[in-house]
């Protein structure tokens, strides 16, 4: 590896570690997340230009922070000059100006938390929140986000520009929300993290079943959030859920990349370190004695599987009961579909099929490939093979994932003619 390449890889690593902290500290200083992000990017460009010649500084994070801060001060001074000139000609311009004497200190915890809440603000659409979170908190480059979501670089760049403008237009303050607003805003943050994780865990488009880099990033951000907000049970619950789900990554696909269903997975390939971490995170959530939220119940469900060394050790009755709780907290036909699977496992396929047939008319399930897939599975177990075959074929037509489609067609073929 050449010296320049080596330095660039170090710059990348430092950027990934420090960018969120730099942006967060600058955002507190400038009160403008968009400007903060631009100044941090300028510092990154300066590092890429200077470090190959001058060497990597002893404290690269502080170097980035100082450089970005200087640029921000220049920018603010230019704005202040502009404003003064505007005032001189009698225009009424009101713009919040930062306190130029305010320093950037090492206590960035609150700043980072403010940045998370800002990037995930509900004023933004889902795609914008995801892009902004990965860019500003994950330190991912635009092209990395584009590659992860199989869209063009320009699409992601536009999303980010529009998101920053939307935040500025809405006057979103750079702060940690308090009181009743905190729970709503926290829900938005958790939703973004879980969306990122799920997009990595069950890719909705493309040939790959999983995109592990997205899972890893969501998990890392979840752990960071759990350190910043240790008294929020739902944060620990989401971390628990992601840890346990991520533990199955290596067992979820076969040698050809085809998906392997949960009960058919080789549990020796599960990552028991992550399962242990997930169970600990769940204990932290339980220790807070807060009313169970949707992530808690989902994590408890995942833990039921995580505790079972063999599929036959799974406590399906507890799983069915937990789905009932989840259905009360977050009523959804998809939760009911999962409950049907648990009922079938606990009490036999006929019990599951009865519930599936009850919810089959739900509007939200029309076009959802797992409905015919699950129904086909129950029918097959009940020996109604031709009906099962038709359901698997229907499911294969509905899924957008190529590998899942192959699996479903194989199941249909195994039902005979």
């Amino acid at each position: 590896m050449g010296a320049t390449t080596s330095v660039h890889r170090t710059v990348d690593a430092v950027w990934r570690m420090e960018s969120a902290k730099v942006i967060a500290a600058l955002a507190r200083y400038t009160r403008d997340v968009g400007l903060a992000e631009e100044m941090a990017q300028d510092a990154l460009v300066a590092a890429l230009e200077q470090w190959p010649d001058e060497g990597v500084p002893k404290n690269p994070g502080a170097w980035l922070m100082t450089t970005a801060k200087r640029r921000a001060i220049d920018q603010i001074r230019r704005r202040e000059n502009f404003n003064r000139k505007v005032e001189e000609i009698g225009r009424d311009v009101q713009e919040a100006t930062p306190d130029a004497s305010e320093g950037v200190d090492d206590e960035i915890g609150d700043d980072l938390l403010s940045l998370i809440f800002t990037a995930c603000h509900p004023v933004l659409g889902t795609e914008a929140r995801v892009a902004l979170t990965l860019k500003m908190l994950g330190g991912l480059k635009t092209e990395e986000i584009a590659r992860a979501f199989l869209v063009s670089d320009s699409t992601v760049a536009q999303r980010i520009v529009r998101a920053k403008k939307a935040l500025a237009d809405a006057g979103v303050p750079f702060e940690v929300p308090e009181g009743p607003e905190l729970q709503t805003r926290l829900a938005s943050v958790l939703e973004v993290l879980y969306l990122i994780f799920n997009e990595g865990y069950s890719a909705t488009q493309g040939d790959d079943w999983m995109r592990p880099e997205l899972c890893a990033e969501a998990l890392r951000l979840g752990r960071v959030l759990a350190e910043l907000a240790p008294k929020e049970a739902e944060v620990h619950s989401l971390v628990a859920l992601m840890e346990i789900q991520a533990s199955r990554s290596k067992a979820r696909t076969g040698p050809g990349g085809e998906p392997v269903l949960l009960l058919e997975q080789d549990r020796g390939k599960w990552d028991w370190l992550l399962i242990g971490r997930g169970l600990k995170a769940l204990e932290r959530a339980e220790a807070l004695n807060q009313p169970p939220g949707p992530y808690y119940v989902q994590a408890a469900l995942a833990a039921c599987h995580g505790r079972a060394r063999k599929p036959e050790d799974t406590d399906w009755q507890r799983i069915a009961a937990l789905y009932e709780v989840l259905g009360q907290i977050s009523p959804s036909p998809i939760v009911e579909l999962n409950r049907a699977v648990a009922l079938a496992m606990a009490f036999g396929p006929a019990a599951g099929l009865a519930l599936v047939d009850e919810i089959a008319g739900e509007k939200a399930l029309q076009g959802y490939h797992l409905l015919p897939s699950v129904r086909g599975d129950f029918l097959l177990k009940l020996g109604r093979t031709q009906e099962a075959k038709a359901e698997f074929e229907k499911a294969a037509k509905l899924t957008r994932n190529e590998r899942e489609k192959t699996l479903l067609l194989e199941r249909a073929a195994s039902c005979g003619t």
Partner: protein
Amino acid sequence: MRFMVWVRSPKPLAALHIDSLERAGVLLDAGDLVPHACGVSGYWLIDVRNREEAVERIKRIPLPACVVEIRQVAVV
């Protein structure tokens, strides 16, 4: 990717400040080994994007004079 960081230190590892690894969400596990004549040994298991990030993260920990070895964990 995962890296195992072996540390041979004259001070107990519990006295070393590794909060930064925890706060960054990259520390998966940590443990001590049985002490021997050269001092105290222990390990940290971290999950980072690449070797450079592993090195940069460990460089930020205020360590006493000690031996540190950073090895990537093989993916089976």
